[in-house]
């Protein structure tokens, strides 16, 4: 079956990204396909390339990148929620006249349409918040 996940909690603030990541690995291990993870609300912080947790804590951004590399899971981030909260890609940084960016591929800033599209093409759609 095809799964889609919605993540709405920030790492190091809530535990929901941890739950989502464990669940992602469990469905893939079962042989299902994880079509994509959409990050919305405070979940956009998962995409921050600047996070630097202590050595003995998981780097959640890196963990999502590895999930993408191993299983080709799309990592879409709501652009409106992200910009508000200080998350930007290189092209958005240029557009907003900022000197830096903290969202890089495989994370993609995208509209809410992608969330609805993911939900519609997934057989199972699960929210972690």
């Amino acid at each position: 079956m095809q799964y889609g996940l919605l993540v709405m909690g920030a790492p190091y603030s809530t535990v929901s990204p941890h739950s989502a990541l464990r669940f992602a690995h469990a469905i893939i291990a079962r042989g299902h396909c994880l079509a994509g993870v959409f990050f919305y609300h405070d979940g956009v912080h998962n995409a921050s390339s600047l996070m630097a947790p202590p050595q003995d804590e998981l780097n959640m951004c890196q963990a999502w990148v590895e999930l993408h590399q191993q299983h080709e899971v799309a990592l879409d981030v709501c652009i409106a929620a992200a910009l508000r909260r200080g998350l930007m890609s290189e092209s958005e940084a240029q557009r907003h006249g900022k000197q830096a960016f903290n969202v890089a591929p495989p994370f993609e800033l995208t509209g809410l349409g992608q969330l609805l599209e993911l939900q519609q093409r997934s057989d199972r759609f699960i929210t972690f918040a």
Partner: protein
Amino acid sequence: MILHILTKAPYSSVAQQMQQAIGEADAVLLVEEGVTAALSPSWTAWKAYHSRIYILAEDLLARGLNGIAEANELPVIGMDEFVTLTEKYAQTVTWY
């Protein structure tokens, strides 16, 4: 048929909202803070949704509540059975 996923404590307003929304064929999975329901065997949901309410083992263990869940003979399931539940129930609703 919906799988309701509760992430908050059993006596929270969130849990009350969930309980209003549960249909006769629905199931309930307690995760994150929801697993503290293991401490409350008198929580009405245990009886109301008997045989279709579950607690996630990993989150119980993290909080040191697995012994209590066992003593109260509560239905503990692993991450793998969480996946099975989502296979069985086409819809999920997360209460957070």
